[in-house]
């Protein structure tokens, strides 16, 4: 970017300084690579170890051999899990919950973000701040009152929500909607006003302005928000643990932890296989849409 400026300013002292500076650079670069390699190893050990263990038989896992090496690789853990009805049920429940939650989230947060970004009305600024504050309220504060609320609701109306997978469709949006609305407000606010003014002069309604102009222009933001909503609902652990108990209603993370850990017997080969398969969908999305993922992450400061 500013390379010309660098050359200009460095010019007078070039003869004296250049060699030591370039040597400094080389060393800084070597150290950077060295430490980055260390950190990358630290970051990748758990997923790699999942993969290593998932390729082993139970006999090899309990043998006193080197745990970091697979002597007799086998896919039996994968075959066993992918043909077990129970595991497929978990997977289906997780997929259904995530897809529905993403849809609900987008249907609620996109119009709301549009209204808050463009149509100033009584209390809109307060509401925008309120949305942001809601995002700061953690789920660990709300699970007990929500649990009690659903129990009372069941007693009053006879509609049983506890221990049904679709109860998650009601509670997950509380985690996804505030953040998605917040980053969509940001994306919508950055669209030049001339665009929607032109549309309105041409006789477009507010709805048309939203669907024909705002959504196409803010598509990167929309993708980032969708990825966020999917990742959050796929990874959520506390709510399904509290609200669902019978095996056919469980989602993947809770299912793996409650059914594969039987008492004190840990079927580690299968647990690691299940964990890897459970981590696969977010990882695949991340591998293909990394830039959107990072854009969403830095846009509104996600949970960390």
């Amino acid at each position, binding site marked *: 970017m500013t390379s010309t400026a660098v050359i200009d300013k460095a010019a007078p002292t070039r003869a004296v300084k250049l060699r030591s500076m370039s040597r400094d650079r080389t060393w800084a670069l070597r150290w950077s690579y060295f430490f980055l390699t260390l950190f990358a190893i630290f970051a990748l050990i758990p997923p790699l170890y999942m993969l290593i263990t998932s390729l082993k038989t139970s006999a090899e896992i309990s043998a006193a051999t080197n745990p970091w090496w697979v002597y007799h690789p086998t896919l039996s853990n994968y075959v066993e899990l992918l043909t077990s009805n129970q595991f497929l049920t978990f997977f289906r429940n997780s997929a259904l919950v995530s897809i529905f939650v993403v849809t609900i989230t987008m249907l609620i947060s996109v119009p709301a973000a549009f209204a808050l970004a463009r149509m100033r009305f009584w209390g809109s600024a307060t509401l925008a701040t309120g949305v942001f504050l809601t995002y700061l309220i953690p789920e660990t504060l709300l699970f007990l009152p929500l649990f*009690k609320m659903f129990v009372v609701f069941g007693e009053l109306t006879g509609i049983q929500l506890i221990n049904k997978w679709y109860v998650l469709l009601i509670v997950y949006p509380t985690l996804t909607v505030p953040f998605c609305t917040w980053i969509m407000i940001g994306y919508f606010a950055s669209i030049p006003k001339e665009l929607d003014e032109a549309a309105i002069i041409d006789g477009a309604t507010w709805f048309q302005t939203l669907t024909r102009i705002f959504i196409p222009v803010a598509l990167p933001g929309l993708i980032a928000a969708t990825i966020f909503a999917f990742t959050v609902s796929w990874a959520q652990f506390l709510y399904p643990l509290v609200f669902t108990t019978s095996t056919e209603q469980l989602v993947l993370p809770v299912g793996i*932890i409650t059914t594969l850990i039987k008492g004190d017997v840990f079927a580690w080969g299968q647990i690691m296989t299940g964990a890897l398969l459970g981590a696969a969908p977010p990882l695949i999305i991340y591998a293909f849409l990394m830039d959107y993922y990072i854009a969403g992450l830095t846009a509104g400061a996600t949970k960390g």
Partner: protein
Amino acid sequence: MADVAIERKDSAPPRAARKRASLRTALKRKSTAAFLMTLPLILLISLLVIYPAFYSLHLATLNKSMQRFVGLGNFQFLFTRETFWLVVQQSCIFAITAVIFKALIGFVVAHFVHNIPAKGQRKWRGMLLVPWVIPPAMSTLAWLWLFDPSYSAFNYLLAGIGVDRIPWTGETGWARFSVILVNIWVGAPFFMIMYLASLKSVPDQLYEAAAIDGANWWQRIWYVTLPMMRNIIAITTLFSLIVTFANFDIVRILTAGGPLDRTHIFATWAFRIGIEGGDIPLGASVSLFMIPILAIAAVFILRDINKRGNEA
């Protein structure tokens, strides 16, 4: 924003002329349309976030069977229990240590990534962000297996250099270390990404000016980088403080609060009491203790965000 509103009002027919159309114009009016568009959001937030938040205040004043009002009885009971004070202490140790190390590691790694040629940065960033992408419940299982008392893969490596086997999750000190380590592993990449984004936004001219003035690397960081990144550092740290303080997955899966309740934090202890122990009011009282920290952090974040808004 405002210009559009004024034009729309001007072009609307004079009010006195047609009263019949008032309902239709009301529906067409901007504020009505806007209100309808935000209605689902308002309903969701008020019914499923604000109402339960106040409901938990109410729950905290009931007895175990939730039939009798006991006022502050639950809190008085908590204050007499030793475990409660352990949980307070452990929550603070856990959150503060983890956030400090996440921020430091994130800062250092972001500099390393920023240092190397731009071509390779994508690849490294991609690898370093993996811990953040894997659902924490799944990656904590891998850590649990790495920490396994009899087959620990870390102990195998340590045995190679002659170190005794370490009771990763079996002994108070090590168990506390382990939950913090896993939390750092999950959260540091987030700091790295945020800091990297803000490092890239520092203009190169500032570093050139500093270099001409003869600043060494430490002075460049202290007088150029840190002041430019101050806002992002503050917001990221406060965010992380909130979620780390309210963490559940990692402690629950790794130690479930053990050994002897020594690693319980507010969320896991509230779960143990409220769901597993069936005492919802007492559990709700425990989780209410998270509010002061959250409120303080939220106030600072809001202030910073408003400041950022004014600067832009």
